[in-house]
């Protein structure tokens, strides 16, 4: 009798537990990104890449139901922080989404201060990579230095001896030039800083013409980069000067908006849609089917972020609040198939990954596309990792 009771009690407990599991409260994920302003297309791609992973898993990540709360930061650090604090108060413990480093720097400290997790799908500010690294901060796309120091390595490999560097006069622009200079071995003829809202570059192009460089490194994302590419081609300088620059200065949308002007650009990147691995092929096909357009590198790193979060949610069965240490340990393992292929975290929880050189050339259909050339560097980390001492 006693045994029977114990058995039925056990059965009830099992039933109860499975009942809890099936009606599990979804894990809330705060997804703050830039959806308005001209840069809104970047946020759209990031959102769509992330939601594709959720859709493929039937509204779950790693088998755990998730509720993704999407908000627009309008590229303003203040409004990003406001959204995050509102979500923190309503109990959200896991955040991602932010594209721009200046917004990230405002938001991430509030999140990790209260024991929340921030997993960055694009912005990789140096702030959290060195001394101020944090056990609850992860960066999945890159550390910001990497796109420019790999471009410098590519310039070295291409034998470009004399370069002019050009970037807008603000923090990310200076960081990009700093990253480039740290790895470039040739001669830098001039560093040109442009105004942040500048749309005409005739003055800078005239100066470049007078300097006779072999190559240009530019960090001008978005509209400024489109303007620069069109005017660079129109000036005829593109016939004699090599452009060696990050893919972020000539992403898919910019390529479409510049006609033939981007032809011949050498670009450093951690991923393109022609990446040769099963995870990437599956991702590109699914993305094209779902949204009728080709995914950008922004969508790819967002998809990776979603799957990384999935792998860690699975390890704690969705109990983010009860088992934060196990959740963190699972994130660190990076136990997911990255569309980039080779991927792991360094000691500062920023990526160690391969970087590739591609060139903008006409594809089989005659349209300009990224043509893979070679691997620039394997297992590339960042220079701040050695300064990071994790306390957990």
């Amino acid at each position, binding site marked *: 009798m006693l045994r029977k009771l114990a058995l039925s009690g056990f059965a009830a407990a099992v039933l109860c537990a499975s009942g809890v599991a099936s009606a599990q409260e979804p894990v809330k994920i705060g997804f703050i990104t830039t959806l308005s*302003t*001209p840069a*809104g*297309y970047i946020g*759209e791609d990031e959102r769509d890449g992330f939601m594709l992973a959720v859709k493929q898993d039937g509204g779950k990540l790693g088998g755990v139901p998730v509720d993704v709360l999407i908000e627009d930061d309008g590229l303003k650090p203040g409004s990003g922080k406001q959204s995050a604090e509102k979500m923190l108060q309503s109990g959200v413990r896991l955040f991602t989404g932010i594209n721009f480093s200046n917004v990230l720097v405002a938001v991430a400290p509030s999140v990790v201060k209260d024991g929340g997790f921030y997993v960055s799908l694009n912005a990789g500010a140096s702030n959290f990579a060195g001394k101020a690294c944090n056990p609850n901060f992860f960066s999945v796309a890159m550390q910001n230095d990497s796109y420019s120091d790999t471009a410098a390595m590519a310039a070295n490999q291409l034998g470009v001896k004399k370069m002019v560097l050009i970037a807008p*006069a603000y923090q990310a622009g200076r960081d990009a030039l700093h990253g480039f200079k740290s790895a470039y071995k040739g001669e830098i003829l001039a*560093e*040109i*800083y442009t*105004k942040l*809202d500048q*749309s*005409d570059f*005739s*003055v*800078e192009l*005239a*100066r470049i*013409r*007078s300097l006779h460089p072999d190559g240009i490194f530019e960090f001008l994302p978005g*509209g*400024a980069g*489109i*303007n620069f590419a*069109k*005017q660079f081609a*129109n*000036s*005829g300088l593109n016939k004699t000067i090599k452009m060696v620059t990050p893919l972020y200065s000539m992403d898919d*949308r910019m390529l*479409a*908006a*510049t*006609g033939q002007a981007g032809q011949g650009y050498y670009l450093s990147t951690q991923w393109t849609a022609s990446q040769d691995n099963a995870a990437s092929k599956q991702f590109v096909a699914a993305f094209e089917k779902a949204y009728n357009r080709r995914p950008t590198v922004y969508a790819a790193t967002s998809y990776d972020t979603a799957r990384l979060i999935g792998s860690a949610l699975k390890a704690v069965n969705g109990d983010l609040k009860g088992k934060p240490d196990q959740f963190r340990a699972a994130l660190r393992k990076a136990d997911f198939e990255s569309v980039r292929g080779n991927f792991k975290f360094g000691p500062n929880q920023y990526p160690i990954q391969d970087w590739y050189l591609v060139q903008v050339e006409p594809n089989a259909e005659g349209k300009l596309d990224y043509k893979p050339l070679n691997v620039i560097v394997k297992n590339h980390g960042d220079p701040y990792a050695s300064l990071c001492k994790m306390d957990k």
Partner: protein
Amino acid sequence: MYMLVEQAMNGLQYSALLFLLSAGLTLIFGIMNVVNLAHGSFYMVGAFCAAMAVAATGSFTVAILAAVVGAGLYGLIVERLVISRLYHREHLDHVLATLGVLLFTNALVTMVFGRSPPFVAIPPMFSGSVPILPGLNYPIMRLAFIGAGVLVALGMWFLISKTKVGMLVRAGADDSETVEALGVNIRRLFMLVFALGALLCGFAGVMAAPLLAVEIGMGEKVLITTFVVIVVGGVGSVRGALLGSLLVGITDTIGRAYIPIWMSHLLPPQYSDSVSSSLVSASIYILMAIVLLVKPRGLIPAQR
């Protein structure tokens, strides 16, 4: 030497863009006494209309027509629906309402054309470069831009000083109440001036489209500089707008070209970059401050 000539041409080309934008704005401000923050929106509308026309027909002539008609019509609609209700309100109301129009237009263009910036190729007749001095080639598109600026300046001079409408415009800029008291339909004149301003913006939009990114918010970037131009030139006068455009365009260009070079000789590198980039950004405002010290109402203000 060649660099100085090339930079001077760049300055002229920038001045031409500023003149196309400020000629209308100065009249709207001077005659109608309306602070119009939505002026840059017509520039954007013109550029997007041009991009759509080029995509559909491939002809730059059609693009010019589409931009001018599209921006002019949109200007008319905005004037009828919004601006015409503001004439007797205060400047703060103008700022609020036209800022609203600006935000609305950005959202409207996003909905109609999407967020991806469309591509406008340089028309074949303007592509490539020609030698302007032996050994110095200059892009034809930029020369065409300067030519367009000169043509519009001549056209405006003819319109303002040789026609009856122009006479009313000048009279309106001097004293609109008296003009109204003389039995002129001032409301219709306002509407005309506003549509003309929008139309010129549309023309600037189509000329800029092959050189610049056609994107949401492209108008806001130049709006502040356009206001600097009309303050320097004197509110309400097209001649002032022309002089202001030239001064501001050349100052900005020469500043961007030479301040970094001078500073790198004067200061050690760790300071020269930040000092020169601040000075470059400030150059046109320094110009404005000097002009306002000497001539508080601008260089060639409308009489009042």
